């Protein structure tokens, strides 16, 4: 077994002429498409410099948001933070490839996807702070059909498949109308590919030829366990045995992520069945704020992937197109403001109401939950700690 940085997923570290890996931008921001990128080049015609600036802006804002999340965790505002640092290119490109009517089933690290789809990412802070288990309403159109985070690895791949089965029954696949046809984009990581649910999602989606795109962010680590422990074959090949066509991309190239996801979402919406994308990327930070990568990660590998940073890469490309300092300074200020706003609103958060324990356990009235909710109210009242009660006590004294 090799211990090279991308062991288990060859193709990105030395993309030769026969490399299947799709990449448009080199780590230095030069537009040099790999052979595998050719069939996707036309999808870049859908975007111009306005979109490229937007990609850059969102990646930079989420990078700063993520840093603020770590800061707030270190300052005791959250028990846990889940960093997204390093994966912004894979997330922003793929998220922009989705159409408004598409549905997104994230894992729990897709902060950038949530931002692009329009959720208030303070909800992620609230979730990790322990104010809620969810945080945003996926049925509210303003949240961009971005479904809830799912912490049991890979479970949501089946929910995404079932949702796509529903879209088929609703006649929203393969009509040829771009405003109608709908796909489901599901994200998971390299660790999830070992879960049975992900294999079952491939089985069910292939069986029903559902409009699913499964987007794997291979960030090379499942907490402390390298991807080589999960798979001896490149992960993009995994789905092919299930009859799900696949492609491997440089996940730190936002253009590759956009173009490849756009094409495969088109395929899914057209009724051509499920698709699988493996985006090679790297978790620059820790798994969570409770993790300690110094115990297991290799510094040289880390440094190599820092040199492939998706944001710096796009900045270099934008500068080569003539973008100047003013734009980058403006984005830096916007990111600072965004983080400051998150900080202020985090510090203003209050504890959730105790009704959260009991409400919505069931959709319909349930005698046990009702009884226990009432019991807790009586129990708490028995201590008479309210200001009104203590005021009365003082008066009586």
């Amino acid at each position, binding site marked *: 077994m090799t211990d090279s940085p991308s062991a288990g997923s060859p193709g990105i570290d030395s993309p030769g002429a026969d490399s299947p890996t799709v990449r448009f931008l080199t780590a230095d921001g030069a537009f040099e498409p790999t052979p595998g990128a050719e069939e996707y080049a036309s999808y870049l015609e859908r975007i111009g410099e306005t979109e490229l600036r937007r990609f850059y802006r969102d990646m930079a804002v989420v990078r700063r948001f993520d840093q603020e999340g770590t800061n707030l965790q270190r300052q005791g505002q959250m028990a846990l933070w889940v960093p997204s640092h390093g994966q912004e290119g894979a997330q922003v490109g793929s998220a922009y490839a989705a159409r408004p009517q598409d549905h997104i089933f994230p894992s729990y690290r897709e902060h950038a996807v949530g931002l692009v789809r329009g959720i208030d990412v303070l909800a992620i802070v609230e979730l990790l702070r322990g104010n809620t288990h969810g945080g945003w309403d996926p049925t509210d159109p303003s949240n961009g059909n971005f479904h809830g985070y799912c912490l049991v690895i890979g479970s949501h791949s089946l*929910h995404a498949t079932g*949702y796509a089965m*529903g879209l088929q029954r609703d006649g929203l696949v393969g009509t040829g109308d771009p405003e109608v046809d709908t796909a489901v984009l599901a994200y998971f990581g390299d660790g999830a590919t070992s879960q049975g649910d992900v294999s079952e999602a491939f089985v069910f989606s292939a*069986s029903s030829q559902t409009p699913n795109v499964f987007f794997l962010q291979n960030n090379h680590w499942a907490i402390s366990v390298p991807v080589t422990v999960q798979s001896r074959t490149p992960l993009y090949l995994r789905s092919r045995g299930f009859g799900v066509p696949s492609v491997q991309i440089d996940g730190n190239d936002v253009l590759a992520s956009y173009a490849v996801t756009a094409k495969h979402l088109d395929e899914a919406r057209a009724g051509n069945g499920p698709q699988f994308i493996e985006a090679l990327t790297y978790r620059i930070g820790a798994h969570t704020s409770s993790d300690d990568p110094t115990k297991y990660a290799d510094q040289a590998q880390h440094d190599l992937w820092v040199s492939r940073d998706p944001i710096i890469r796009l900045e270099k490309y934008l500068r080569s197109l003539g973008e100047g300092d003013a734009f980058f300074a403006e984005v830096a200020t916007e990111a600072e403001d965004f983080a400051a706003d998150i900080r202020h609103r985090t510090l203003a958060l209050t504890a959730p109401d105790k009704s959260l324990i009991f409400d*919505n356990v*069931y959709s319909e009235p349930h005698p046990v939950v009702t009884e226990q909710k009432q019991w807790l109210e009586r129990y708490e009242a028995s201590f008479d700690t309210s200001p009104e009660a203590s005021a009365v006590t003082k008066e009586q004294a």
Partner: protein
Amino acid sequence: MSTETTLDELPMAKALNAGLRQALADDPKVLLMGEDIGPLGGVFRVTEGLQAEFGKERVVDTPLAESGIIGTAIGLALRGYRPVCEIQFDGFIYPGFDQITSQLAKLTNRGGGAFSMPVVIRVPYGGHIGAVEHHQESPEAYFAHTPGLRLVSPSTPNDAYWMIQEAIASNDPVMFFEPKSRYWPKGPVDFTASAAPLHASRIVRTGTDVTLVGHGAMVSVLLQAAEVAQGEGVSVEVVDLRSLSPVDYGPILESVTRTGRLVVAQEASGFVSVGSEIAATVAERAFYSLQAPVLRVSGFDTPFPPAKLETLFLPDADRVLEAVDRAMAY
């Protein structure tokens, strides 16, 4: 079978078939999904003829994977469908356990009530059919322990016909435990009205000396025991639980207040079981009415044995009467 008829003698399997057909006809969002439920009609033929009638999109033969069945049903429910999943046998439900307990049961709560999870999971359960390992189990307690799920179990064809439709109409996940040994005996089905609400327990035989409580196939055993006891001069009341979560304690407590004695019977192993929970609750709430400790009659705390020994494992009328005798002796 015609719904013109108001009273018909049907086996439970056919009553369930009629109930499912009615649910499919009433609501286009209702879907059936499971292994072998299409042309074969399920291994117990409960869904016989339904795919031919409603099509492959609404009566779905799924790949052979229980987590996949429940997980995709969750996605369909998020999209507004009302999936009814068939788990082929009790002992095959465990590959779907995570999707049931960590996802299906919790998603409405996790989502702050923004959406419901109207999913029914039909589980043919229990022994008495002489089958091989994994085919005769009673796994109710695992799921009764999980907040967010509802559990029901019919004991008669009439209840089966109505309760399956009421379960499908519920906006909460309902686990529907079908006593497979009762699939074939016929009983009257009244197509005009349900006997009781989905989560109501019901006194099905009145008596004055001791109350017996059970669900599913155990109810017929309890009625048989009551008949024998009558001959021995002991008047036995029988309560059909019907709902395992929540438990409708009203009729149980009302009965125990009168009889002063309670025996809870179940096929499941007794340790940390639905019967244990009922025993504890009745002891708390009816302490001063009790003439004897609440007694439990359960399957042994062993794996379900090879089928040639199942009659020793499963509580029968004699095992129930032995407990009745003990209760009466206090």
